[in-house]
Structures are given as C-alpha cells and as structure tokens.
C-alpha cells in the first residue's frame, strides 16, 4: 500500500490522472508489472489492471448497485445472475458488505465509496488508485475503509492512495512518497519519520494550525435562526419511496436519500453573536447545503425565521440579504462562487454588482472594479499574471483566494464560510484563517462549515453537529476531540459532547443539544 502525500496543488491528482491515462506525460515512463507501458486512456488503464476511485463518486443515483457496477462493463459478466454472483464474490472476498439491489441514492457516502471500489475490482483491477478517499468520511468510516484496503493488500493487490492527512498515512501505508510542486521530494517508510517530519517534508516548513486564541465573542446577536424547517418537496421531488425508512446504517440518512416530504432541515435554531465563529460539523449531505441556502435566501424554508443583525430577513431575496452584509464563501466555488469563463475582474463584481466600487447607479463602473480587482490580487496574493485571464485558468486555491478577497472586501456582518480552505495550499490556508480571525475581531460573525475537523475545532468559538437535518449535539471546541465529533456526526452520539463515555446510545432519539 503506497501513499502519495503532498499539499493541495502539489500535483498528486495530476500524477494519478496520468497513471489512469487521462493525461499524457510529456516525458518519462510508466511501468506496470515491470513492463513499460503507454497508457492511452482510462479504458486502456483498466485493461492493464489499473482502476481509479475518484474523489467525487461517479455513480448514477437512480440505478441499483448492481446496475452501477455493470454499467459500461456489460461484456464481462452480463447484467444478470452471473454479474450478481461475481459482485457477491468480490464483496465477500474483501468484506465490502455491498448489497447489489439497493438503489445508490439510498446509500451513504461510505457505502458509495465501497461500491466504487467494487466497481473497479469488478473490472479486474490489480492496482487501485484512490484519490483522497478519506476526505468525505468521518474517523470511524476511515477505519472501516482502511480495514477493507488491508484486505485488498493481503490478496496481493496494490493500493495507491492520495491523502494529505498525515496521521492516517502513517498508520496505514507501507511506503510514502512525498511530492511538492510537482516533484518527488522524498520517499520514506512510516517507521522512518514522525508526523511532524512528514509535514515539514510536505510543505517545506512547519504546518500552521487553525487555532483561535483569545475569544472575541460579544453578546450582540448577529444571526438568529429560529425553528428553521425545510421539507423536501416541490416540483423536483422524486416520488415518495420509503427505501431508506427501515435501514439501520447511520450513513443512509444523507439528504439524497430523503424521501419526498421528509425534512432536510428540522427545527434548526441557533444564534451567532458579533465576533463569534459558529462551526457546524457533519457528514456532507446532512443539511449543511440546505442550511446555507436558507440563510442566503436561495431556499425558502417552510417555517422559521432568520434574523440578521436584529432584522427579520426571512422574506428578503438573495440580493437584498447580500447587500445587507452577508458574505458567502460557497462550498462549491465553481457552481456558486465564480464564473469560470469570465475574466477575474468580472468575477470580482459577481455577487456585489449593486455595491461600490462595482457600479454607480445602474451602470457598471468597470474602471473602479478593475482597480479594485488589482488590489485584491495584490493583497490576497492571488497568483495570476493579470486580471484579464479567465478564472478557469487559475488553480483552485487561487480562485478561492479571489473569492475570499472579494467577500472580505465588502466587510460582511456575517460570513458564511463553507469549506473556506478546501483545495488551497497550506500557506494560503493560514492566510485565510488569519483573515477570518481578523474580521472576527472586528465584530464579524462567521458560520463555518467544514469537513476538516481540525479547522472546525481550531477556528470555532462554538460547535454544533448536524445530522439528518437536525442539530444533534454541541461541543466546546476547547475540549472536544475529532473522534468525539466524528461519533456525533454519524448520529451515534448527541447532546452535549463532554467525554466519549457520556455519549448516549447509538441512534437514540434524544432531544438535541440546543441551549
């Protein structure tokens, strides 16, 4: 089992894509089983026994596991009994626990990942590439995944996995390759290095920590949510099906599985004060997206009120809320934060077209907007040769810096920061954390949603756990551990998280931990 580590943007994914035939190398060779090969494309890679599990799953939600696995590989074992038998065989051999007739939309993230792995094995892969397989999992699921991977290894398969989480790399890999800025900087084995040394290899310097030291929380409420509830429904809702109803697996409660009429957000209430960072932990798809959408005004909740700085904004459209001081760092920047084919200066206008310096009256003030873009590029260290290049030609981290710079430039009263440092390199990460901290000192309230538990614990003044659209637990970031949070994120613990022993039984329908 070989781990590739490196900070974001170091070239890990590019390397893996090259292995999988999605890119052609300019120079150098790839050897599989001692034989130098030229991989023409993904199909060729599969034929050579290389399979890839992408970070973003490539599954059709409305098909069953069996159908997803056989899709595109019908020639191997057909689509009927033989295929089912083969799937069960593989599943049993590596204890993947895959059920072939369940709809993928009823599966949780960890289950989907197992389906992806099975899909690759079904196609005869002997070398598995996993691109950041643990990014979307909670700690307990990570352990289960590594257990599966060890099974694969013991059967003689090769596993390459990409990660930037050093703890897990050290605990599971046999060999570690560290890459930085596109080149290999070290090849080590877990026995040789400590976590700290590995981190230093990775970034070339010491890792920053997201710690927030002094508290700046005031008693003036900035954002108050009261009994916010949102049920799935409307025109796009699928026909009601109760497939997820009786299942016992906690992961199966992701929102994708929610049948029509079920609650995506269930009676959510909290207050964020000026100068406070409220962190929300949760497995992706448990209502975080809906919560953000409701606060920003893209979704109208079925009931409940939203107050921003004392004013009821529940009925306000998005633009009015943003003008009133709502900053937004979206979780999916390509979908919600940026116009990929537009130049940087137009992206600087996006979301703030009605505010200075972007416009005067109904007219755009292109000159001022451009000048301000230059300023943001300078101050936020956006690495770009100019402001006329399209956003698409910047790396993800630099796009993120532009977004953060843009949002911060309007001095938001409340910043919704969803995965603010996802995909940015370590240096930029520290910078973004600093900016959030600084604005918080000046009285900005922050709603922080992140999959990076260290970031959540380090930055937040208050922590809540969301599960199945409910706030099920709260925790004090000063004392809580990532493991405790992880337990609550799967729904296995609720209430106030003090120590692991205090957590009530799994799946209990206890009242949530609202104050």
């Amino acid at each position: 089992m070989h781990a590739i580590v490196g900070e974001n943007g170091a070239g890990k994914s590019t390397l893996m894509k090259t292995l999988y035939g999605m890119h052609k190398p300019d120079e150098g060779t790839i050897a599989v089983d001692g034989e130098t090969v030229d991989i023409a494309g993904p199909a060729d890679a599969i034929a050579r026994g290389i399979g890839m599990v992408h970070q973003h799953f490539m599954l059709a939600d409305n098909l069953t596991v069996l159908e997803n696995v056989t899709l595109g590989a019908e020639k191997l074992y057909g689509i009927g009994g033989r295929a089912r038998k083969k799937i069960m065989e593989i599943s049993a051999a590596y204890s993947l626990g895959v059920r072939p007739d369940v709809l993928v939309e009823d599966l949780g993230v960890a289950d989907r990942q197992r389906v992806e792995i099975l899909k690759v094995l079904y196609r005869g892969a002997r070398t598995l590439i996993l691109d950041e397989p643990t990014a979307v999992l909670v700690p307990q699921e990570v352990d289960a995944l590594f257990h599966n991977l060890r099974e694969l290894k013991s059967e003689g398969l090769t596993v390459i996995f990409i990660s930037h989480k050093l703890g897990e790399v050290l605990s599971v890999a046999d060999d570690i390759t560290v890459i930085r800025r596109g080149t290999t900087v070290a090849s080590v084995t877990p026995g040789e290095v400590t976590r700290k040394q590995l981190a230093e290899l990775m970034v070339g310097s010491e890792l920053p920590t997201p710690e927030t030291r002094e508290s700046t929380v005031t008693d003036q409420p900035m954002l108050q949510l009261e009994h916010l509830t949102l049920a799935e429904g409307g025109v796009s809702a699928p026909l009601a099906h109760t497939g997820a109803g009786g299942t016992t697996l906690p992961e199966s409660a992701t929102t994708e599985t929610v049948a029509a009429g079920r609650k995506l957000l269930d009676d959510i209430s909290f207050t964020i004060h000026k100068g406070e960072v409220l962190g929300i932990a949760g497995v992706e798809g448990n209502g975080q997206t809906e919560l953000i959408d409701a606060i920003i005004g893209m979704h109208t909740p079925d009931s409940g009120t939203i107050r921003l700085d004392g004013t009821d904004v529940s009925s306000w459209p998005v633009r009015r809320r943003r003008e009133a001081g709502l900053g937004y760092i979206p979780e999916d920047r390509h979908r919600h934060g940026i116009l990929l084919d537009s130049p940087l200066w137009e992206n600087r206008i996006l979301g703030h077209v009605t505010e200075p310096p972007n416009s005067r009256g109904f007219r755009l003030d292109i000159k001022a907007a451009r000048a301000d873009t230059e300023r943001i590029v300078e101050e936020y260290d956006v690495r770009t040769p100019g402001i006329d290049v399209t956003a698409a030609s910047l790396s993800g981290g630099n796009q993120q810096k532009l977004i953060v710079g843009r949002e911060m430039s309007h001095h938001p009263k409340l910043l919704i920061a969803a995965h603010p440092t996802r995909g940015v390199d370590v240096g930029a990460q520290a910078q973004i954390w600093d900016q959030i901290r600084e604005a918080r000192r000046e009285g900005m309230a922050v709603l922080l949603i992140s999959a990076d538990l260290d970031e959540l614990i380090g930055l937040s003044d208050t922590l809540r756990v969301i599960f199945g659209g409910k706030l099920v637990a709260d925790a004090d970031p000063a004392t809580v551990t990532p493991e405790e949070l992880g337990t609550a994120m799967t729904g296995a613990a609720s209430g106030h998280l003090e120590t692991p022993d205090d957590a009530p039984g799994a799946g209990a329908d206890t009242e949530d931990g609202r104050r």
Partner: protein
Amino acid sequence: MKNAFKFDRERLLLGIAGPVLALAVAFALSVLVLVASGLDPIEPFQIMFSSLQEQDVQVLIVNQWATYYLAALAVAVGFRMNLFNIGVDGQYRLAAVLAAIVGVKVSAPGPLHILIIILTAIVVGSIWAGVAGVLKTARGVSEVVSTIMLNAIAGNLIAWMVLKDQFGEQAEGSNDLTTGLIDESGWFPGIKVSDFAGEIYGFVFIAAAVGVVYWYVLSRTRFGFDLRASGASESAAAASGVDAKRMVLVSMLISGAVAGLAGMPELLGGTHTYSSNFPVGVGFTGITIALLGRNNPIGVAFAALLIAFLDKASSQLNLEGYPAEIAKIMQGLIVLSVVISYEQVRRYGQRRQQHRVGEELAAQAKKNRKEVSA
C-alpha cells in the same frame, strides 16, 4: 498592464479564428457538395462574388441585413443567458402582421404613425415571447419546446387573420391576401440610391442603433452583468443575488421585443403591408447568425452581412443555371462547422491560457527564488 494587453489581443485573435475556421470548413464542404453533384465547384462562388458589384444587389443585401441583424440580436439576447428562443420567427411574423393591421387601421401624422406601428410590433413580439417566459418560470416548461409550438400557433393565427373575413384584402386579379396598404404617413423614409437600385431602408440605421444599445446594456450595465452571469452559470448567478425567474422572463420579453422589430425594415420600408409573401424563416436564420457572430454585436453584424450576401447573391445562380439552394446548403454547413470549430477554439484557448498562466507563475517563482538567494 502589459500582460493584460497581450491576453486581450490573444482573445481577439482566437475570437476571429473561430469564425474564419468555420467559414473555411463550410466553404470546403460546399465545394465537395458541388463536386458530388457533378457541378463546377468554383464558378458558383465567382458568380456570387461578381454580383456584389451590382448596385441593386448591394442595396438588397443592406436592406436584408437590417432584418437579419435584428432577428439575430433577438436570438443573441436569449443565448447570452442560455435561453434558446427558437420562437423568434413566430414573434417576428405575428408582430409584423399585427403592426401592419394596426398601421392600416390607424391614421396619424407621419412620425406618430410610424411610432404606433413600431410600438405595436414591440409589444406583440414581447407578449408572444413572454408566453414562453411565463410558461418557463411558472411551470418549468422548456422554452425550446414552447417557442416551437408558439411558432406553429402564430403561423395559423396569421393565416386566419389575413383571411378576408378578418383583416385580409385581396387585390383584384391576384390570389395574394394582404392586410391592406399602410398610409404613406406610416412609411419609414429611406435613402434613394438610384431609380434602378431602389432605396436603402431608413430602418437600417435603427437596426444599427439597436446593436449599440445591445452592446451598452449587456456590457456596461448592472442588468447586463446579471444577464450574462445567468448565462455563464445559473447557479453562481443565483447565489450572487440574481432572481433567476425574473431574469428569464425579462430576457424573454426583450428578446421578443427585438424579434418584433425584425419585421419593421421590410414592413415600414418595403412592402407596407403584410402579405403571404412576407419572408418566413427569418428567425431561424437569426439563430445561424447569432451563432456565427458569437452573440457579439459586431460579430453578429458581420455574420448578418455574410448571410444576407449569400441570400441575395445566390439568386443570380438561377440565371446562370446553378441551383440557388447552394447558398442554403452553405448556410447549413456554416451552422454545423461553427458549433464544432468554436468549441475547438474555446478549448484550445483555455488550455493555452492555463498553460501560459502556469508558465508565467513558474517564471515569477524562479525569479523570486533567485532574489531571495541573492
């Protein structure tokens, strides 16, 4: 700023590369079609180009340009926000027939009479397009489907309206049904070129002015920014505070209004009546032109000129024994090659830009490192 200039020039070059490539491919394919049908592959083009020297053909092209330009702008407004208004043709015809009817029924002094006719056309065009807009925002009906259907409805409505029982008139000794002739006060003054060549419609200048307004609104106003943002990424626009539904409705209304104007050069400058000879399919040609001109007001102007040329110059072909349909085939081929070549050029440009951004950053990083070590 030096860099900015470099990138801009490159974008311009790539912008021109797309249509040039498309036209070259379309030309080559047309030659193949001619060869395949056993005709001289070059002479038809020579005939078309030489007809350009004739003054009457020139006037015809310029007049046709106005209609095409307006129709293409109507399509382009939709395209800029990812709305596919296939109904420009129906909107344009319905607007023309109702404007003609109103023009006949109303009598007013010159400018006012013209204004009433134009306003009627704008309102009718917007309403007809607005139906599709409302259907989309209220019920989620795809505008592609609804506008196609509205085209059919408009066609039948028009056929019914020009019947003699309604508003139609039939000149003696003619089978042609018309809506009657608009009084001369409702004729848009033109520029007379010569007795032989006729006059250039005054509405040509209005069409050009609409192009300027289109450019200004789209690239210089908040509204235009919102519209373009919606087209570039609906989700990002929504997050930025654009009311998606309102935007769909408003841009459909604008698209329809411009479509309504498209009938005006012909009605006010040429026929002064709506008859069964009134050109059909202008809206579809508009789609071709908007595609070829990349929804850019200047690009569309050139594209409209090219298509108008193909249209008018091809009538010479019949006289020389070649089928005039060659021009139609060529138009179709242009659409095909435009779609393919633009995507190719776009991808190439994006790759190239990414490459260059990477290169420049690497160079910068190297320089910084040297400075640090020095």
